[in-house]
């Protein structure tokens, strides 16, 4: 196996609201390897974005990390001082956001924004930083970077904006790159281009990429490993091929079954009935019990632990049963 880029263990995020305290992320652990892509897969509200925010330190004031560690390069990002964290942010860890338009400052020229990491971290003079910004823009495939460097974000198309954002994230060649639904707002052709760009940069910089997405096709295409999240917990992990070939958790199976393959026109699409549990009223036992077709008494009483077996892990009492 390749070198470890980031190791997240037992990450727990709690939300404090007027209705009480609840866990949005509950003991999430995963390891991202350099040069590989790990996909965090799950439906909206399952805590995958919250996990990313906790790792990069952008949690809203109502959310706080109550347990766990994020090891990058032998340092625990959750324990280091704020100053050290600022030094690590950029050269070590960086993030690509979903909405590129709001992630770019509307009144600053893109060249200024792309130059910012160099100006801040390497104290590079303005001229050289600008040259680096142009180089970056060319590298991520923006045509005529010399003239576009003085444009403003609103003068770029959605795909180009996402390229700019990726360029900014990889400016200092980070060891770990978190991509939080980087292609959700884009159309399918542009989506493919952006994913190809991410893959290319991942190889060049030997980055560990954590791809957060709800799109099964993207996971199948891009990821090496997948971690399926449900209700703030990881319910199944493993190499993408194996997990997609042979899902062991009923939720993963439900997800895969809801992809239309060789379905007749007019035939009903299969879907998982119901909705994820309310975070304030997670029942004891398995969080998936209310929607699980195989639910049994043990599922209502005991919470299944994530058990590792031959490179794969699954949190289900009936793992053996679903594996056939």
């Amino acid at each position: 196996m390749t070198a470890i880029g980031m190791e997240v263990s037992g990450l727990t995020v709690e939300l404090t609201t007027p209705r009480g305290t609840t866990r949005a992320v509950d003991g999430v652990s995963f390891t991202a390897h350099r040069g590989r892509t790990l996909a965090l897969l799950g439906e909206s509200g399952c805590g995958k974005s919250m996990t990313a925010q906790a790792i990069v330190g952008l949690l809203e004031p109502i959310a706080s990390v109550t347990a766990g560690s994020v090891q990058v390069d032998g340092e625990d990002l959750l324990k280091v001082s704020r100053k050290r964290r600022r030094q690590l942010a950029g050269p070590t860890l960086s993030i690509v956001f979903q909405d590129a338009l709001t992630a770019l400052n509307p009144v600053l020229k893109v060249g200024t924004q792309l130059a910012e990491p160099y100006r801040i971290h390497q104290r590079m003079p303005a001229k050289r930083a600008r040259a680096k910004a142009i180089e970056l823009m060319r590298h991520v495939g923006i045509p005529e970077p010399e003239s576009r460097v003085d444009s403003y974000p609103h003068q770029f198309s959605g795909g180009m904006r996402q390229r700019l954002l990726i360029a900014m994230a990889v400016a200092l060649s980070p060891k770990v790159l978190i991509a939080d639904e980087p292609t959700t707002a884009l159309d399918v052709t542009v989506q493919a281009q952006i994913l190809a760009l991410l893959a290319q940069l991942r190889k060049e910089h030997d980055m560990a990429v954590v791809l957060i997405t709800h799109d099964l096709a993207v996971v199948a295409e891009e990821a090496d490993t997948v971690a399926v999240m449900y209700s703030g917990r990881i319910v199944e992990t493993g190499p993408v091929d194996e997990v997609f070939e042979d899902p062991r958790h009923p939720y993963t199976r439900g997800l895969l079954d809801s992809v239309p393959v060789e379905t007749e026109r007019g035939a009903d699409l299969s879907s998982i009935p119901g909705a994820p549990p309310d975070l304030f009223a997670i029942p004891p036992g398995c969080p998936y019990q209310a929607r699980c077709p195989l639910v049994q008494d043990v599922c209502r009483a005991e919470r299944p632990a994530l058990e590792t077996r031959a490179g794969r892990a699954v949190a289900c009492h009936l793992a053996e049963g679903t594996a056939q």
Partner: protein
Amino acid sequence: MTLLENPPEAPAPEAPDRPARANWFRMLLADPAAFVSALILLLVAFVAVFGRQLAGDSAIKGDLSLSRLAPFSLDHGWQYVLGGDLLGRSLLGRLMVATQTTMSVVVPVVLISLVIGASVGMWAGYHRGRRETVAMRIADVILSFPSLLMAVVVLYIFSPSIASIIAILAITRIPVYLRTARAESAELQTRLFVDAARTFGTPSGAIIRRHIFPIVLPTLLTVATVDFCYVMLAESSLSFLGIGVQPPDVSWGLMVAQGRDQLRTQWWLSVLPGLAIVITTVSANLLASWVRIATDPGQRWRLTVPRRRRRAAGPTVLETT
């Protein structure tokens, strides 16, 4: 109004200078009202600097035979084109001297309160929490005193000099900028691009400087021009009460106040300095609204796209791929 004569350069400091400056000038030409305002403010600035030398003795030494001379005649030389005051001093000369006094009070007051109020406000709004609370409560305390009353009390205790007028007016105006800057900065610090800057390890000072300040600045400039009029009037009121600018020095507000008794017979003694106040403040406001458009990249096309084409094509979308 030195503040508004030089519209801020493009927020990108590394942009090549020459073409950028030519662009600013072209955008100024595209808005005739703003262009005229800029010329007027330049004239005011020029008079404020060189007025005393140009006016010479005519502003100080009166010729009683020219007392209450009616304006708009060149019979007694250019200095008396706007008539004479009660002591036969040239009204034009006195206006020019007053320009300097007025500007030397108003510009520092606006600049000082703008800089202090804006920096504290942006800092408080960015960090929120206890820092914000403390800053805002101090602002509330200052605001809870009627500012003119506070100025009167302080100026009675200390000797009324230009410096003390500037100091007290600046302090009473700080909360105006502080509140505006805090409100905008508190909203901006939740935006994704500020989060993005944080993920590159940008320290908070640099985020305020690079990401928040350029967006807050146009609003602050607009507030400043409105405040500019307020400060000018406040200075006149203080001068009228005898605790502001002291004779023989003179300011626009003082001239309006002194001419009040003769308003029915010698209207020009009050009306002409009043007109100077109105023209200057209107120019400042017009230029400020131009600055707001010119500094907003999303609005800038209004100044760069020719008017005729705009009407034909409607708002153009500058989207390019």
